[in-house]
């Protein structure tokens, strides 16, 4: 690189380094807190580093492990519920002739267009009468509502991306509609449906607001545990829990493009 070219590249290099600091600075602070033993004002950096809080978090019968198990079960049930609702709905919306199809698609988008807190407040009020507050069932229902937007839209796109002639070929050689669906259409749409399942799983794992209202006082998911630790000022526990929540999300970032192929993405909303 000639000196002149290097000089011309300097401003963008400075900007990129600044941006990296802005993006990774907060994450760095989280990492530092996760390995801190003692740190208080006015000290700029921790006085002592160590892993004693990790031992507390990962203690087999500790609160954090219990919350992690609760969170994973809720996420699994939410995925099952969302897929059970959205695979048939997605197929119908992609393939069958439906009256008011555009309106139905739009309806699933509606919860995204309204601020969530007032909705959750009134769900809580109804759930209180139905004795669903503080139950896993109640939390799964709220998470399913939240995940449904993604699972319906993505599975509709996944079914729309499946070549219709393959299905027709199967029907022509004598497969019934159900058999054609399970042996041809569903396997071909599977990558998209898997992507929506992973998406719903992560959304459920990270969900805070709905669980905050519906889950209290008995259901403590990982985000709720993290929140309480943070409010109580226990930043070590909060940061370690935050890291546990971060791992699946970042893993998803690395694999998302493998699942959500361009031909499916192009069909979203079409």
């Amino acid at each position, binding site marked *: 690189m000639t000196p002149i070219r290097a000089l011309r590249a300097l401003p963008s290099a400075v900007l990129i380094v600044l941006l990296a600091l802005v993006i990774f600075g907060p994450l760095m602070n989280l990492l530092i807190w996760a390995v801190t033993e003692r740190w208080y004002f006015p000290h700029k950096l921790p006085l002592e580093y160590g892993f004693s809080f990790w031992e507390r978090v990962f203690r087999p019968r500790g609160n954090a492990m219990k919350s992690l198990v609760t969170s994973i079960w809720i996420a699994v049930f939410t995925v099952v519920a969302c897929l059970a609702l959205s695979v048939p709905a997605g197929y119908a919306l992609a393939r069958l002739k439906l009256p008011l199809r555009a309106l139905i698609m739009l309806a*699933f988008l509606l919860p995204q267009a309204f601020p969530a807190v007032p909705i959750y407040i009134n769900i809580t009020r109804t759930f209180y009468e139905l004795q669903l507050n503080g139950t896993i069932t109640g939390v799964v229902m709220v998470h399913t509502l939240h995940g449904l937007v993604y699972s319906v839209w993505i599975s509709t796109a996944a079914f729309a991306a499946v070549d219709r002639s393959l299905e027709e070929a199967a029907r022509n050689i004598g497969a019934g509609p159900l058999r054609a669906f399970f042996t041809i259409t569903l396997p071909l749409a599977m990558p998209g449906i898997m992507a929506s399942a992973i998406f719903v799983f992560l959304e459920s794992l990270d969900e805070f*607001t709905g669980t905050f209202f519906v889950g209290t006082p008995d259901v403590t998911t990982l985000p709720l545990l993290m929140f309480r630790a943070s409010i109580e000022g226990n930043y070590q526990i909060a940061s370690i829990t935050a890291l546990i929540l971060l791992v699946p999300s970042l893993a998803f970032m690395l694999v998302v493009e493998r699942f959500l192929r361009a031909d499916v993405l192009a069909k979203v*909303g079409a």
Partner: protein
Amino acid sequence: MRASIAIMRQPSLIGLLMVTPALLLLAALFLYPLVFSLISAFTVERSDAPAPTFGLFNFFNAYELYATDILFTVVIVGVSTLLIGLFAVAIGGYLTLGETALAVAVLRWLYRWPLFIPFIVAAQCMRSFLAKNGLMNTALEAAGLLDPLSAQSFLDWRGIIITFVWKQTPFVALLVAGAMASIDRSTIEAARNLGASRLRALVEIIVPQVQQILVVGLVLSFVTMMSVLSVPIMISGNTPTMMTVDMAFRINAYGDYGTANALGLISYVLTGAVAWIYVRRGVRQGTPP
């Protein structure tokens, strides 16, 4: 062939049946609470009256107690939306027009990170990063840009804006960069050949062509920021704060659904005004929901 054509012809009853369970869940857990919140906002329950009456009392109460917070919410979310739009266009613009291939590649890898970080984790990161002895002040002091004695905590309205912009910019930038990548390069090159600077090409040629998706991304971000509870509680739970925190407080401390729902209705109106733009621009233009 015959069978599938037959299926296509019937305005499918089976199809409707297949969509019904999902629609029922939507009705029970979204429409019902929504209607309920609207009714509750206008219902006045008082101990001295035998039966609940309808009126605007809850709104007067909400205004009297939380007028500052409503203004605060509008300012925080409005400023955040503007900054998100600005940064997203800047990132998208650099990805499209950048001449240093390495810098473009690094930026493409770099800018997406916060998109995949949950709000609650972002809030915890910022809660330590923006504190008085957080890494931000430490770094500024080390660089000689900040006098240690004048160091202050950013855990107030500024912290909420910083967190929102940090978390939401990648989402809008992703949409905008995608749209910018698909526009016709010849118009940009023509402008550049005629001597337009990169900034001018961005503002006058590129942005008008991606305006639609930019607005969709910003509207979705606006609604998201109006919905998030964890960030305002964790960054700045003290007064003045955002309406989401006030709603949670009315419920948890007083069981006061009337005032909470009045605040809720005000937040619907605020997002409704913005969502109107979204509907006008057409949902079909929006990519992932």
